[in-house]
């Protein structure tokens, strides 16, 4: 059995028994949605519909409706793409990396974090597809035989690496999430009263019964999937960073990009997990499972990764100066003091300075402050991608083609739409899916709950 020191803080509060966990996880699914849920849902849905309209307009007219110009060929679209992919990383990190490190605090947050991953990657995928201009031809990125002679996709291109990385990431995260959901759907099925609910959850649960042999395979499967997902998650943002790093654009052509992007992804992903879970634990009453301790652990991750990102920013500046390359030096000087100085300093303030507050125990255990910082970090990480993409492009080698970017209402509408879509999916998830991996959480009731700690103290 898993042993845990009695002085370590409990991960399950309020003397919960196994049956209490079942009840608490099933309650939001079996109960009715309250006014707050409906208000948030309708709000997100209207944002989503607005975004869908903007996407339809883009597809129908062409990407000329975006604010891109000849100098700045990538702007909000790719910024949003990288932002959403980065957010996705925290889910896999929590469910896979923390599983390999045997961190039991992942158990009450991994389900929602992984749901967030999948929903975020869905949003991310929309941007490159619509940036193609003719999204109905998106399948051309696949290596399919075609009628243009022996023309194949270019395997030397990081953009194609991205296609493989993102699709592998999305599908592997999805099955990893679903395999964990099967026993929990079975729990909902077994206590469902209405025949229609029972029918739906028995289909979703794939006939799970909880046999000893199945659990043995389940544990092996989780372990191996975690072992596969860990390098996968690191590879995905590495490859995203190579979209930039393998090109010869000053400001992009940097070997530090892969680790720097991965740290940034984890940083922004944990911030989004905080934003979502702080609201969710309150709305569906999970305070006993998602405790202040969990929030504190996540804040420490935010602090560490935020500091790594800060070191990366400073290293970039140093290397630009040290390289002696005039164009490289100008690119970074222009970032900090050029026309986009405000975006650069917004990024610096939000990403490097704000997480430093988490050194204080009082602040990192404060729910209100954590929520505030999580929003600040998300804004900061959006600006980071904007700064990298737009400031590196807007002044290229030929001063006569220097330009500025301003988004059109379509750019803004699509971005708002993806935020709406993301929340629509998450809100539906919170009402129909077991939001805590209850089967696995039940394994730590004897080692990490308050009653077990009290027993150990006696």
């Amino acid at each position, binding site marked *: 059995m898993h042993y845990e020191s009695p002085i370590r803080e409990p991960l399950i509060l309020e003397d919960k028994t196994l049956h209490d966990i079942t009840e608490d996880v099933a309650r939001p699914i079996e109960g009715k949605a309250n006014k707050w849920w409906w208000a948030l849902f309708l709000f997100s849905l209207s944002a989503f519909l607005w975004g869908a309209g903007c996407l339809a307009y883009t597809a129908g007219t062409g990407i000329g409706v975006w604010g891109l110009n000849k100098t700045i060929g990538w702007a909000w679209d790719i910024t949003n793409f990288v932002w959403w992919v980065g957010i996705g990383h925290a889910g896999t990190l929590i469910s896979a990396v923390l599983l390999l490190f045997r961190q039991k605090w992942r158990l009450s947050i991994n389900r929602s974090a992984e749901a967030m991953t999948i929903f975020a990657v869905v949003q991310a995928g929309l941007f490159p597809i619509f940036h193609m201009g003719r999204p109905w031809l998106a399948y051309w990125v696949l290596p399919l035989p075609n009628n243009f002679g022996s023309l194949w996709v270019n395997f030397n291109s990081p953009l194609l690496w991205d296609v493989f990385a993102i699709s592998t990431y999305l599908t592997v995260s999805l099955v990893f999430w679903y395999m964990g959901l099967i026993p929990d759907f079975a729990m909902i099925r077994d206590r469902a009263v209405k025949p229609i609910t029972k029918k739906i959850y028995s289909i979703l649960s794939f006939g799970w*019964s909880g046999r000893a042999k199945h659990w043995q*395979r389940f544990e092996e499967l989780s372990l191996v999937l975690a072992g596969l997902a860990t390098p996968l998650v690191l590879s995905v943002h590495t490859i995203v960073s190579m979209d930039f790093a393998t090109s010869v654009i000053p400001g992009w052509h940097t070997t530090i990009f892969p680790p720097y992007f991965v740290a940034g992804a984890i940083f922004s992903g944990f911030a989004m997990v905080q934003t979502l879970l702080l609201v969710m634990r309150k709305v569906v009453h999970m305070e006993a499972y998602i405790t202040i301790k969990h929030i504190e652990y996540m804040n420490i991750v935010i602090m560490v990764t935020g500091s790594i990102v800060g070191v990366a920013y400073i290293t970039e500046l140093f290397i630009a100066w040290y390289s002696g390359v005039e164009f490289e030096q100008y690119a970074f000087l222009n970032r900090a003091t050029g026309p986009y100085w405000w975006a650069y300093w917004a990024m610096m303030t939000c990403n490097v300075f704000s997480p430093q507050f988490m050194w204080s125990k009082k602040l990192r255990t404060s729910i209100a402050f954590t929520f505030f910082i999580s929003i600040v970090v998300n804004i900061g990480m959006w600006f980071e991608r904007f700064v990298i993409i737009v400031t590196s492009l807007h002044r290229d080698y030929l001063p006569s083609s220097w330009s500025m970017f301003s988004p059109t209402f379509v750019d803004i509408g699509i971005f708002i739409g993806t935020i709406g879509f993301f929340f629509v999916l998450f809100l539906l998830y919170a009402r129909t899916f077991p939001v805590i991996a209850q089967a696995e959480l039940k394994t730590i009731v004897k080692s990490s709950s308050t009653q077990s700690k009290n027993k150990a103290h006696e």
Partner: protein
Amino acid sequence: MSKKVIYGIYDDDDVILQAVKDIREKGVHINEVYSPFPIHGLDHALGLKPTRLAITSFIYGCTGLSLALLMMWYMMIQDWPMIIGGKPNFSLLQNLPAFVPITFEMTVFFAAHLMVLTYLIRCKLYPGSDQKSPDPRTTDDMFLMEIEAHGNEVEIVALIKETGAVEVKEEKIA
């Protein structure tokens, strides 16, 4: 002779784990144990063989790796070589650095998805499958042990009760 199955229902994972050990020591065969969560050491106590899922995953991963290299070799080197970004296209080995990311992704793709499929097939899990546990409480907080009796149900019931079961049920099967 009529066959009967006897269900011993327990309310604690440590108790059922000890019970499995004790009952098997007496030479009684345990058909199955149903539990709401994985119990560590139960597979060993029941005498289950270790699962070979991880091995299959390794084989699938090797398949993915080979297919990825074969595909890229055929498309980029053999069928339609093109010099792009000055990357050498006359041998797989020299173009290999550019092929590493996709080779890795396809290795993971194959290893993960085919292992999941193997798991679902081996456990007979699919939408519409209906292999429920004999008692619905085993997905909540109860642990169930299933033993087949061949005319010796009285002893088995006594044995199960002795090991700390909170409930014993009998059921006739054909």
